C-alpha cells in the first residue's frame, strides 16, 4: 500500500486530476444543459471530436491558437444545432440522430484531415500549438498548492469557472428558468408563451459549445495535435456524469471530477504491480458503485418520507 499512498498523495497526481477531468467537466455541463432543456444530447462525443479537429486545423493554418479555439467551439455548437434541426424540426429520434451525428463527426473529421493534409492519422505534422497554461505568480510559490494549481491549462480554469456559471444560468436567469420549464413540461411552457423550440435550440448551442471546449482541450491542451477518434468515448462518459450528478451543476461537476480522478488513478497505479485489467476497470467500477449508492440513498429517502404517513395520518385524525 505504501507506494500507492505515495502516488495518491503526491501533488503531481492532484494536478493530473484537474487536467484529466477538464474534458469530462466541460462536456458533462454541456450535456446537463441539453438534458434540462428536454433534449438528450448524445452527440457530445461528436461535438468534441469535430471541435478537436476544427480547432487543431484552424490553429495550424491561421497560426493563432485562439482562432482555433473559437472555431473549434463553434464547430461543436454547430453539430449540436444540427441535432436540433434533425430532432426538433424534422422529428427524428434524438438518440438515433445523435448516434448518426457521432458517426458523421468520426467520418467527416478523418476525411477533412485527409483531404487537407493527405494524412489519415491526424494533424501531427501541422504545428498547431496548444492553448497557454496559466501561471499563478504568487500561488505557485506556496508548497503543495502551487504545484497543483499553477501551470494548468487555461481551459482547465474555464472548466472550473463553468460550473458556477452554468448553475447561475440555470437557477438565476430568466433564460435558465425558461430552459428548466421547457424541459419539465414543454406544453405548460408553451401555454404561458415560452417559445419552446427557440429555448431548446439555444440550450443545444450552449451544450455543443461546452462539449466543443472539451474537444478543443484534447487537441490543443492535453496534446497539441488531432488524431482521428482521439476523444475515445469521453463524450459518453460525460453523459454518464450528467445522470450520476443527478442533473444538477454541482453534482455533475463532482461526478465528472470523480471520473477524472478514477482515470488519473488508473494511470498512476498502472506503473505499480497491479494487473492492468483491474486498473482499467477502475472508472467503471467507480460508476457502478456511485450509481448503487445513489439508488440506495434515494430508496432510503423515499422510505423515510413514505413510512410515517399511513401511521401518522389516522392517528392524528382520531385524537381530538
Amino acid at each position: 500500500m505504501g507506494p500507492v499512498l505515495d502516488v495518491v498523495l503526491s501533488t503531481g497526481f492532484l494536478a493530473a486530476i484537474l487536467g484529466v477531468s477538464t474534458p469530462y467537466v466541460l462536456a458533462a455541463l454541456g450535456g446537463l444543459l441539453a438534458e434540462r432543456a428536454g433534449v438528450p444530447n448524445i452527440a457530445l462525443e461528436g461535438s468534441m471530436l469535430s471541435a478537436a479537429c476544427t480547432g487543431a486545423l484552424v490553429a495550424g493554418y491561421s497560426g493563432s491558437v485562439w482562432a482555433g479555439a473559437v472555431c473549434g467551439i463553434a464547430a461543436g455548437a454547430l453539430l449540436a444545432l444540427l441535432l436540433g434541426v434533425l430532432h426538433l424540426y424534422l422529428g427524428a429520434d434524438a438518440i438515433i440522430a445523435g448516434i448518426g451525428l457521432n458517426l458523421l463527426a468520426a467520418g467527416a473529421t478523418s476525411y477533412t484531415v485527409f483531404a487537407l493534409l493527405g494524412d489519415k492519422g491526424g494533424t501531427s505534422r501541422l504545428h498547431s500549438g496548444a492553448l497557454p497554461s496559466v501561471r499563478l505568480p504568487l500561488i505557485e510559490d506556496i508548497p503543495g498548492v502551487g504545484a497543483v494549481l499553477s501551470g494548468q491549462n487555461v481551459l482547465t480554469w474555464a472548466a472550473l469557472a463553468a460550473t458556477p456559471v452554468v448553475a447561475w444560468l440555470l437557477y438565476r436567469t430568466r433564460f435558465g428558468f425558461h430552459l428548466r420549464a421547457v424541459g419539465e413540461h414543454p406544453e405548460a411552457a408553451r401555454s404561458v408563451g415560452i417559445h419552446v423550440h427557440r429555448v431548446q435550440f439555444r440550450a443545444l448551442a450552449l451544450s455543443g459549445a461546452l462539449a466543443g471546449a472539451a474537444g478543443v482541450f484534447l487537441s490543443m491542451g492535453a496534446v497539441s495535435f488531432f488524431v482521428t477518434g482521439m476523444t475515445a468515448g469521453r463524450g459518453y462518459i460525460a453523459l454518464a456524469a450528467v445522470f450520476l450528478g443527478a442533473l444538477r451543476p454541482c453534482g455533475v461537476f463532482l461526478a465528472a471530477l470523480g471520473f477524472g480522478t478514477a482515470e488519473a488513478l488508473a494511470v498512476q497505479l498502472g506503473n505499480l504491480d497491479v494487473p492492468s485489467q483491474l486498473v482499467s476497470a477502475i472508472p467503471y467500477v467507480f460508476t457502478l458503485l456511485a450509481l448503487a449508492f445513489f439508488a440506495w440513498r434515494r430508496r432510503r429517502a423515499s422510505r423515510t418520507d413514505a413510512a410515517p404517513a399511513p401511521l401518522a395520518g389516522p392517528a392524528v385524525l382520531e385524537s381530538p
Partner: protein
Amino acid sequence: MDKIRILGAVAALSLTLAACGVSTDSDSTESGKSGKLRIKFVINGNLGDRSFFDSAYAGLKKTEKDLGYSLKVVELGSDRTKWSSGFEDAASGDDYDVLAAGTVDTVGFISKLAPEYPDKKFWLFDGSVDYTGRSGCSNKCANVYSVTFKQNEAAYLAGFLADKLVAAKALPGGAGNEKVGVIGGVQIPVIEDFVVGFKAGFKAAGGNPSSGVLVQYVGGDNPFGDPAKGKQIASAMYGQGAELVWPVAGSSGLGAFESAVAAKRYTFGVDSDQFKTLTDASQRQTVVTSILKNAGNALYLAAKANKAGTLAYGKPAAVGLAENGVGYVDNTNFDKLVPAAVRTELEAQAAKVKSGAVKVPSAF
C-alpha cells in the same frame, strides 16, 4: 410525422456512411489481360499510419516495378463491423490472383475465405492461420502463406540498449534514473511479445526488469488512437523516475513524445523510424532508436519467392532479426546518443540473436 422521423435518421446515417465508406483505390485495372500477377491488398484500417500499413504498401508497391506484379488497394477503414463484408466483397471479385492482408484481426476472414476460393492465393502478414485444419480453414489453408514477425527479438535489443543506457547514465541531460517505461496499446499477445522481449533484454544487460521496467497499457475505447491518455501515462512514468519511455501504442504514442520534451527525457520509437517521421524537431531529438517491424520487406520477399515458385504455402513462416523482418534504427541521433561501447555490445547481442545463440522468450 413517422415518415419524417425515419427520413431524418436515414439522412443522418447515410451522410455518415458516405463520409466513412469503403474506398477503393485502383492502381491498375488492365493488368488481368497482360498476364501480370495481380495483388489485391485489403487493409483493415487506412493507409497513412506512417508505420505498419504504409510499410506493407511500400513493399507491395515495389513489386510492381521490380517483379512485374500489379497492385490494387482496398481500404476498409477502422470500423470493425465493415471488415467482414469488406473482405467477402474483395475476395469475390475476379480481379486478383493474390489477396494480401495483415494483422491478427484478419486471421478469421482469411481462414474462411481461403477454402472458398481455392484457386486464389492468400498472403497474411503479422498473423497466422491454423494449418492443422482443426479450426479455421477447412482445406488446411493450403493456399495461404502467413508470416509473423519476431517482434520479441527486436524488443529484446531495445531492452538491452535501454538498460545499458540508463545503467551507464549515458543519456545527456538525464536525471540519472535507472528506470525505463513501456506503454502498450492494450494487453494482447502481439503487444505482450514486445514487452516480454524488452524485459528479457533489460535483464540480459544486467538490469532488474521487475523494478526497472514500468509497463502500462492505454486501453479504453480507442487504445491506439488516444494521445491524451498516452501523454498522461508517459508523464506519470517520467514522474516515477523513468529515464526513457517506449510507446508501442500507435497514435497514442504521439502523446508520449510531447511528454518527453516537457520532461526533457528520452523515447524509443516503434514501427517506423520516428526520428524521421515526427515533424517536431524537439520531439525527434528524444528518439534514441526505433524498433521496426519490416512488413514491406517481408511482403516483398514473399512476392519474390512466389514468382520463383518457392513460396511455402500451407505452413506458417516467421521472420526475425536474421531475415531482416524486424530490427532497430541506427541513425544520426543514435550515433549522437549511444556511446560507442554500448553500440558494440548491442551489435554483439544482435549477432547472438541472429545466430540463435540467444533464444528470446515470446508471449505466444
